[in-house]
């Protein structure tokens, strides 16, 4: 079976507008969750905190002709993809482009566009909308713009599984390369749901925290929304070697499962099976796992179930395997979250630095995990990691990465 590796990474997220600044923020345990600024109709929201991407100037990255076609979620994806492609030093001329593809995750697609135009036609009573509303809002907009930007002429698709979208996208990218459908795939996810309508919808479910994201901690009381995304260059190992490029890590395995239970309440069985399948697919023994990037939303139900799942999968000693949630710093990026969280996995494998779970006030007996509370840990030898994503709708996707 073909081995698949990561040769480039890029991101725009609340912690930073590129990978180096994001990893620095994670190392420093910086929290990007703050009072919301500048949302339309913000005064009508009960939730007044979030992790916004601040100071992002689309016009500095994207030309004026193209900007009207790009929702914020597609802007994040394009800027992140450029960074990833530059790092991978990969080109897509001729046959290389035909053997290259894109698989991007998003839960809501062009939410900002939907929000703005609903306001325009419903609230403001306008009868005319901008001609590009449809190409901006469609879920595959980011995937399509990546394909056009770089000339990726092979498989192209968007994957939408709520909060697991990025992980499902990256897992499918792994399988497509393994299966021979492509040699290189740009993959990850992005989301820009941090708008009035996006937040109002989440308020309705009553799972949002009003004061912070504290995964696995005793005082946790809900999730905090973020925005942004990340893109990676996934590539067949032999392809990277032929190009003389040093891979960042191996994408060793992928496991997915469905709870077939309830629409928003997680089961234990679904996550456990997804984690076990990822390990089996990767050929990684449970004892080799040195770090787990948790789904860790900060809701009571997710974190308790995820802690139980970790113990079920890793057995005795599970509480000694660090499992942190970087959502405590960058918030929940919904469909883009798994991609940004994979950066913490790369940092663990490559630099031996474990990103912390910040705002961790006190442990919860229901969550007996080493959450790497409050401060990053360095000098840790990590050979294999898992990255969890468990979506509303009971769809679970877990990636296993290994150091090369």
């Amino acid at each position: 079976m073909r081995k698949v590796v990561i040769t480039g990474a890029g991101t725009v997220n609340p912690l930073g507008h590129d990978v180096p600044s994001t990893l620095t923020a994670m190392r420093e345990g910086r929290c990007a969750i703050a009072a919301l600024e500048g949302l339309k109709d913000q005064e009508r929201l009960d939730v007044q905190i979030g992790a916004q991407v601040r100071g992002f100037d689309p016009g500095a990255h994207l030309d004026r002709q193209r900007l009207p076609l790009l929702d914020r979620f597609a802007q994040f994806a394009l800027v992140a993809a450029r960074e990833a492609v530059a790092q991978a030093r990969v080109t897509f001329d001729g046959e290389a482009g035909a053997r290259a593809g894109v698989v991007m995750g998003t839960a809501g697609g062009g939410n900002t566009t939907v929000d703005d135009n609903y306001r325009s036609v419903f609230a403001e009573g306008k009868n005319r909308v901008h001609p590009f509303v449809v190409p901006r809002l469609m879920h595959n907009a980011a995937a399509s713009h990546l394909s056009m930007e770089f000339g990726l002429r092979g498989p192209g698709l968007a994957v939408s599984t709520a909060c697991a979208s990025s992980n499902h996208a990256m897992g499918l990218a792994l399988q497509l390369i393994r299966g021979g459908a492509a040699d290189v795939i740009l993959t990850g996810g992005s989301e820009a749901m941090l708008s009035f309508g996006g937040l109002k919808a989440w308020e309705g479910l009553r799972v949002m925290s009003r004061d912070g994201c504290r995964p696995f901690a005793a005082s946790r009381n809900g999730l905090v929304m973020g925005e942004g995304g990340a893109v990676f260059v996934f590539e067949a190992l032999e392809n990277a070697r032929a190009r003389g490029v040093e891979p960042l890590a191996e994408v060793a395995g992928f496991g997915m499962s469905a709870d077939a239970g309830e629409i928003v309440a997680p089961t234990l069985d679904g996550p456990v099976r997804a984690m076990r399948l990822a390990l089996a697919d990767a050929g990684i023994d449970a004892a080799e796992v040195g770090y787990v990037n948790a789904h860790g939303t900060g809701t009571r139900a997710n974190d308790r179930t995820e802690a139980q799942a970790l113990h079920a999968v890793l057995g005795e000693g599970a509480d000694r395997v660090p499992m942190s949630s970087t959502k405590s710093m960058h918030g929940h990026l919904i469909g883009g979250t798994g991609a940004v969280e994979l950066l913490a996995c790369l940092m663990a494998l490559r630099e031996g630095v474990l990103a912390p779970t910040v705002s961790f006030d006190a442990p919860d007996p229901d969550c007996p995990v080493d959450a790497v509370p409050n401060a990053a840990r360095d000098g840790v030898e990590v050979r294999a990691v898992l990255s969890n994503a468990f979506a509303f709708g009971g769809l679970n996707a877990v990636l296993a990465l290994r150091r090369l």
Partner: protein
Amino acid sequence: MEQDVMTQDPAIAAKVIEIIAEQAMRAPSEVTAEDRLEDLGIDSLGVVECIFQIEENFDVQVPFNANNPEESTFDISTVGSVIAEVEKLVAERRA
């Protein structure tokens, strides 16, 4: 007991029971103040929907976070406790 809870405003109690009965897929006559919501088969999502209906019907804001219902100041343990809480909120709104 049941009557004590309901004496304040029978219309409020009747409406709350109707909302909860609808979630429980039962006739209102089958729901009493002593019933616990979970015993009526109402799960956490059902509770959230009940609260939404209560807010819409009574024009009130219910302080409730589905993450930690036990820490909520809004007591949802029984049908009677929900009625009492709604009566309080309605009284506050009218005050």
